[in-house]
């Protein structure tokens, strides 16, 4: 769109990685202004958008903004960076979500020690995630993959809610155990393939790697990435981590960190060890659809009245289901399926990011994310209490269940379409079964999300008693202190008897600013899926040259 020369593009990509790193140190300096973190994430977002604008959209299949410098010749590690059609959307998504989180943090500093340290960790996390999507060297990928651990651990362990300590430990231990196993797989590919360069290895399509090597490599790499994704049955760190994490942590965990797993599968396992992938694809598919049904059933159990379900935990389980669709799409080994997977990846980042923001905002208003506390037997009646907020919540839930016209739809449809006719060599009956199970999963997904909407947004009109006390003019003025008080007061705040009372503050300007872009992009991707598919499809074609569909 905007013609930029190569050097500028390289600099932009480099800035994406270096700015957050420098920023994370800068915000810790004494007397650094509080808006500094926000400014840096804003600059990173601007760089990412500029990068997207300068990206040659006619050739998304080629690596652009490429820089390739030797770093550790002893290990064959090169600072090889570049973007193509599948990493560009993820880079923009990461930059956007981090910016929105920084905005949210700036306006509502998390309760806990030192907001500057929080921002610093946020920036460190951003550097790691952006690097994961931008590097083209296996060992650098591993380095970036590990880089997010420490900041995320501290974000959960220091600023999290109830049960944060064990949740943070679980997150770190699962991921580390997975990633050291993944390192073995990466080394196996690198040592046997003779290079750690991801572009060269992808072009080789597993040539030079024996069948056993490919099997072992896919198994090892797959386990590491499946923990991160997370794939059932390796998901059990996720609900706790999400429930305990602060809002910004949850958003980034769901919106960006989970994507690192599926991105790795598409970028590394799929092209570099095709034979191994072909062997394991049916198992991956089976685990994927199990995850879909398992996630939905867990959500259905949580949404029941009296189950004590937590909204954050529910959305976390719904992530297990949604990532199941992504994995199913990858398992089909078809262009359709993998494109669907990549689409669902982005869509899940947008929608689940939005949902976690909304739940965070709800917690600020009511002091609780517990469904029973919020809704009681009747319903929380957000439509009545805070109409625009309630409407937005319903919008996000409906987008999450995959309503046509919104972003959630296309990815899941394409993944299932891929399963209808999987790649040659894969058992079609097996995948048809997966398709049926996944289809059943979409029904369950719709069921629990509609139940959530029913319990949170609808409900009896609040009793007439409050109306005279709470005139319209009074509420916005007192909103700030109310919300702060409720947030500080924790679950005990405004939830006497299981039913809330009174009006809740509606959306604030900063919330419009934070949620607006996500809503707009959800609509855009839903109505005009080509904007993403045109980017990813050429890359998928080159990653899977053998597939016909």
């Amino acid at each position, binding site marked *: 769109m905007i013609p930029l020369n190569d050097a500028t593009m390289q600099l932009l990509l480099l800035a994406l990685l270096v700015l957050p790193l420098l920023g994370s140190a800068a915000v810790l300096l004494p007397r650094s202004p509080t808006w500094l973190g926000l400014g840096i994430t804003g600059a990173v977002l601007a760089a990412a958008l500029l990068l997207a604008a300068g990206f040659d959209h006619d050739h998304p299949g080629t690596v652009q903004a490429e820089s390739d410098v030797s*770093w550790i010749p002893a*290990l064959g*590690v090169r600072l090889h960076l570049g973007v193509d059609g599948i990493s560009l959307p993820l880079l923009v998504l990461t930059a956007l979500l981090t910016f929105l989180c920084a905005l949210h943090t700036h306006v509502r500093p998390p309760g806990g020690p030192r907001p500057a340290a929080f921002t610093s960790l946020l920036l460190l996390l951003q550097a790691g995630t952006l690097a994961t999507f931008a590097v083209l060297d296996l060992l650098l990928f*591993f*380095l970036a993959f590990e880089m997010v651990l*420490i900041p995320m*651990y501290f974000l959960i362990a220091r600023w999290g809610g109830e049960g944060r300590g064990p949740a943070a430990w679980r997150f770190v*231990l699962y991921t580390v155990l997975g990633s*050291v196993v993944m390192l073995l797989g990466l080394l196996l590919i690198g040592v046997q393939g003779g290079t750690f360069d991801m572009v060269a290895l992808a072009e080789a399509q597993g040539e030079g790697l024996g069948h056993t090597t490919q099997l072992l490599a896919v198994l090892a790499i797959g386990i590491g990435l499946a923990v991160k994704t997370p794939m059932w049955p390796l998901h059990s760190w996720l609900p706790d981590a999400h429930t305990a994490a602060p809002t910004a942590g949850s958003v980034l965990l769901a919106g960006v960190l989970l994507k690192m797993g599926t991105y790795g599968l598409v970028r590394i396992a799929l092209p570099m060890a095709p034979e191994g992938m072909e062997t394991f694809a049916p198992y991956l598919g089976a685990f994927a659809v199990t995850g879909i049904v398992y996630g939905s059933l867990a959500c259905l159990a949580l949404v029941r009245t009296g189950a004590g379900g937590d909204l954050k935990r529910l959305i976390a389980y719904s992530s297990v289901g949604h990532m199941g669709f992504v994995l199913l799409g990858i398992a089909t080994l078809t262009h359709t399926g993998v494109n669907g997977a990549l689409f669902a990846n982005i869509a899940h980042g947008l929608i689940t990011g939005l949902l976690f923001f909304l739940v965070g905002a709800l917690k600020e208003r009511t002091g609780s994310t517990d469904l029973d506390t919020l809704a009681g037997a009747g319903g929380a009646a957000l439509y009545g209490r805070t109409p625009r907020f309630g409407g937005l919540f319903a919008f996000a839930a409906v987008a999450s269940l995959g309503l046509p016209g919104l972003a959630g739809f296309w990815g899941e449809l394409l993944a299932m379409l891929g399963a209808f006719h999987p790649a040659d060599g894969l058992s079609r009956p097996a995948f048809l079964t997966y398709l049926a199970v996944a289809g059943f999963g979409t029904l369950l997904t719709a069921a629990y999300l509609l139940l959530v909407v029913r319990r949170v947004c609808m409900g009896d009109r609040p009793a007439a008693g409050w109306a005279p006390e709470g005139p319209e003019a009074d509420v916005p003025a007192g909103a700030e202190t109310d919300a702060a008080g409720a947030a500080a007061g924790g679950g005990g705040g405004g939830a006497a008897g299981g039913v809330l009372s009174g009006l809740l503050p509606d959306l604030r300007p900063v919330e419009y600013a934070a949620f607006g872009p996500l809503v707009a992009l959800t609509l855009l991707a839903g109505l005009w899926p080509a904007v993403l598919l045109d980017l990813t499809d050429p890359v998928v074609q080159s990653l899977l040259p053998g597939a016909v569909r």
Partner: protein
Amino acid sequence: MNLVQTVEWAVIAPPVIAAFTAVAVLLADLFLPAARKALLGPLAAAGLALAALSLLPLRDGDRSTFCLPDDPALCAYSADRFAVILQLLVLGGAFLTVLLSIPEANGKRVPAGEFWFLLLSSAAGAALLPAARDLATLIIALEVTTLPAYALVGLRRGSGAGPEAALKFFLSSVTATAVALLGIGFVYAASGSLFFDGIAEGLDEADPRLSTLAEAGVALTLIAFAFKMAAVPFHFWVPETYLGAPLPVAGYLSVVGKTAGLAGLILVTTEAFPGHGDLWGPLVAVLAGLTMTAGNVAALRTDPRAPNSAIRLLAWSSIGQAGYLLVPIAAAAYTEEGAGATVAYALMYGAVNLGAFAVAAHVARQRPAHRVDDYRGLWARQPAAALAMGFFLLCLAGLPPGVIGLFAKVAVFETAVDAGLGVLAVVMAVNVAIALYYYLRWTAVLFQPAPHGAAEPDAPRRLPAAPLTAAIGLAAGVGIVLSGAPQLILTFASGTLL
């Protein structure tokens, strides 16, 4: 037969300078008035720095001396790249130890002159060891390294644990030496030479009827060096010795003592017994797996609230790290790569482990119980010390921002994968994850808020003593530079050093 060997003094300068400084310090101690004894520490540090500087002319790694007059290829002392790099590590480690010890030695609990003399003597032996190219020199160097160490462990006045730990250390170590001498005797009998090159040739051409003798000799020699390295099952002396010893001495043993054992092991395996790789390869691999597992599991079980838990944890974790260090040696039996990754890892480990000991020494000045829990709230009290400690621990764990720790582990993993030691690689992967748990737990403690009501006991002593600051800064500087440019040490991992 010409028995006179030529000696190039410049080549043997590093150990000789260290040894001369040791004697000089001991003499100076006799003549200096008590008020001036504080000068001894800087003198020792300067000697070690000078010894390290004398490595500069040798950096090409092509010099050797003490060669046989009628066979100039057989030399007892070779300053090749392997030797020079390990001498740098040993002398650098000893230098950091001196910095760490200055506050302790200036106190009244340790006789300063004797302490510096013993430390420098041991460092001289450790500097001699990697350059040794025959078994006699090797054993002498090893004993020069360890004999003063026993005394160092038990030197502290009024400490009940010190002498007992020293006795335990001494008895078990002497047993190992005896075993080594027996093994060397067997090897000499089978091969007819004490020079590594001669042994390698001699064992290949040995009478087949002597093969059992040769193999027994190889195995016994290995066991002795495994002992010095604190490999499992010869590791039991480590935790008690570390606990009984003054903290800097524990740090010294964990880095310099370990490097000495390691260098000896690399030399005898890859230089003297290259033909017996099928024997020592699996042996070292099993030792590596057992060592890292036992060390890490014991570290994991250390209760952070118990007294001395910080030292105990560092001691056990150093056994775990010794296991990683053994992996490339085991892999060297199967490939032509050599054990360069071990050297690279040892360099990383030496810097950051001494750094961790330096912070521990600093914290112990205010809270002498050596508990991991004493580090709670360090970030609030002393952000720089907390950041440094966090960095060292993450380097040891191998997680960013400790990039060098990560890549050193990657290099070790790579040798295992390359050599086809898949099982060992998986065992190591599990161990890395276990180790991460306790390192990260400690890191997390640093940043936790201090418990309520536990005010700083004496605010005026908040700044660490200047030598400790220098040691922490030096170690952190090395770690940070290496994290930015890992090639500086990983270059040793790629080529063959010997």
